[in-house]
């Protein structure tokens, strides 16, 4: 934890901006550079910054979940996205899609998004598990 007023004030703003950006990256990943992995890394950096500014205990409060639970939730999302395809009888992880609109205005949403969210969560959870373990270790 760094006792710096500037860092703390900046972090308050940066955390929400970076998280927003990470969601943006996550969601646009299917069409533009980005995706769950990068989004997850950005979000993890944001949380790590928070933990440097305010300390690990504060981060735990912000997260609301233990990072290991986030890892588990992410794995669950990814596997659920894979098992979803069992309903129509396709192979594991075959994408299932819903479509709206035509041509350029078309909007598609499908299980790969759920899978990407899983990746996103696993990355956040794993990085924060490491960061928090290191920070909370008594010297």
């Amino acid at each position, binding site marked *: 934890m760094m006792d710096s007023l500037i860092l703390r004030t900046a972090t308050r703003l940066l955390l929400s901006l970076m998280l927003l950006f990470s969601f943006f990256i996550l969601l646009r990943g299917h069409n533009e550079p980005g995706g769950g992995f990068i989004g997850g890394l950005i979000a993890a*950096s944001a949380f790590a910054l928070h933990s440097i500014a305010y300390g690990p205990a504060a981060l735990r409060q912000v997260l609301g979940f233990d990072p290991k639970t986030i890892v588990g939730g992410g*794995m669950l999302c990814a596997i659920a996205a*894979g098992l979803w395809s069992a309903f129509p009888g396709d192979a594991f992880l075959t994408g299932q899609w819903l479509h709206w609109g035509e041509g350029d205005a078309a909007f598609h949403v499908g299980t790969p998004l759920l899978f990407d969210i899983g990746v996103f969560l696993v990355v956040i959870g794993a990085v924060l598990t490491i960061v928090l373990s290191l920070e909370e270790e008594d010297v």
Partner: protein
Amino acid sequence: MLSAILGIFAWALVAPIVAGRSPKLGGWILAIVPAALTVWFAGFLPEIAAGGVVREVVPWIPGLDVNLSFYLDGLSLTFALMVCGIGTLIVIYCGGYLHGDPMLPRFFLYILAFMASMLGVVLADNVISLIVFWELTSVTSFLLIGYLHDSPKSRRSALQALLVTSLGGLVMMAGLILLGIVGGSFELSELAGQSDLLREHPFYLAILILILVGTFTKSAQFPFHFWLPNAMDAPTPVSAYLHSATMVKAGVYLMARLSPTLGGTEVWIYTLVGFGAFTSLLGAILAVRQTDLKRVLAYTTITALGQLTMLIGIGSVYAVETFAVYLLAHACYKGALFMGVGAIDHETGTREVGQLGGLLRLMPVTAAAVGLAAMSNAGLPPFLGFLGKEFMYSSTVGMAGSGMAGEGMPVLGWIATLAMLVSNALMLVTAGLVFVKPFLGPKVETPKHAHEAPVSLWLGPVVLSVTGLALGVFYGVLERLFVVPVAASLAGEAVEVHIYLWGGFTTPLGLSVVTVALGVALYVGWPRVKAVLDRIARALRYDSDSGWDRILKGLVSVAWWQTRVIQSGYLRHYVMFTIVFTTVAIGATMVIHRAFTMPYVSVLEAPYTAWVLALTVIAATSAAVVAKSRLVAILSLGVVGVVIALIFLLYGAPDVAITQFMVETLVVIIVALVLARLPRLTAFHRPNRRSAVRDAVISIAFGAVVTAVMLSVIDLPIPLDLSEYFATRSYTEGFGRNVVNVILVDFRAVDTLGEILVVAAAGLGAFALLKARPRRGPPETPLPETERTGGRQ
């Protein structure tokens, strides 16, 4: 057939509940399913006897030719009937024998799971599913043999059986896969049609040796025979089942199954007849030295397995006929004898020959059953065992003749005959030890006051010994239902066989008379015979079991030694070993295969951006090498990372570049957290000329190898069709314009799933290292010593 196997597995899961709810009738209730299956399989007898076969295929991993396919012919039906039929009796017997044992519910789970695995082995047609079931029998028998897990001796025996049989199984797996590749099919029934191709293939010998190692370990052939008597530490019902119908017969079964595919060559005949004859003789000699009834029976099992192996090896009409008869004979009498001995043990409290006698009047039913079984074991007419022995002599003597495979080898034939004569005579001695000593003769005071065993304990022996007698008397039924179909399976074609009790004054009959005379003589002089054998054993001082101990001890010390060397506890050593190994492995491969190629590279044509980036990397790396503080070193490496990200960006991989940037950022955060907790660099870093030179050499070699690999890789033409495939399909099929992401989450999502699993494991691993380690002092868990064993001979 799949449903039969899965049914028993399911039943095994239910078993603990049933046995827990009704401790008294548990065995009887649980026997229902095996009994029903016995009846179900028996229903196939007419069809199979008429020459039919039943095949059932359930695709499992069709892309790899792995199917859950099952094949029912004479051989597998006979085995299935033994597994289920004797299994039924054993389950009932367990309920009585282990009555009141708190672990009985778990025991039923084990034994039923074992039964299902064994059924899988004998029915499987697909090589891969056969291996799966085969290893399952090893694992479940490990649980059964180690049932009394409080006793170190039990645990050792279980481990020994597991290691020997499952290592053999692994060797066999290599052989079977090779067999499948050479034969062009993974179905055993189809491979049988490829026998000519297989026998002339250059891999034939390799296939044969690999498979035989597996079958020999399972069926306790010399030199792997030592685990079987030790497996006697299991409760008696387990021994009875493993020895009469299952586990140890799996190896014999597979050899028989493969005899039309691989058999009939000279190496097959010499190996099987040689090892089989020697094993049977060894087993018989070791058996008469024992005084513990269970051990006597254990060694005679080795004898029987040797004789069966020998018969498969000979492969003549007589031999395959004998195999069928003897297989059933042995299953019946061995099952009955084991259960009988268990009953004796249960009622008197001892299994020592010397402490038993005159039980006939106290335990008349058990005595009758054991008596009948012992007479079959001794090979007396009109029992099944007599038929087995008669035909065995016919086939060994017949080797002097000519005709089918295995004939026209008179020398081997006479050696085999002699071995069989002696081992059969010794079998007669052991039959006497098991029946005459405990039941006849003078009454001896036993530790417990003996009285007749309950129904559950004598039902099995009675049924099996009566079956042994009935099949011997009504040999027409035996011939039609079992011998003809089994012989056909072994010969790979329909064969004409004829069973008879009285064939006139023939050589085999003469040999039988000699056997009985010799056996009786040896029995009368048993104490003296045993003394002589003991003296010989002491003089030889050879014992496979202690050899096993030595091998295991050697293995452990090698493991210790290499652990000490490689796992020094210093991270820098681990990194060093990893890098050295990678360098040597890749470098040596490149040199051996002359894989290095030099692409056309012109540094002068490179754009100035490339120059700038390259020089920055060199400068940053040099700074890292000479850095005096960790922070400087880490920051310099960070520069390298950022430059690499720039390279990605420059050459059109923005996704990878962003990832690289983010990873660099996080590395800085994590390293900053670590740095605060590390001792100062100078405390460890004493610049030592020797280690500096060593590290420089390793680094330069590693860098050179990586560069060589890179150059060779870019010299290869890039397969453009793959990127084109993804580029054209990513929007039409994955509905995304970012090809990289579509590949990650759609086309190759399974890879990504694996990767996030690694990420998750890394996170949890770091957590375990940092948080879950012991707080104070060095770890004090003692390293496992190999278990010392007592009480072996």
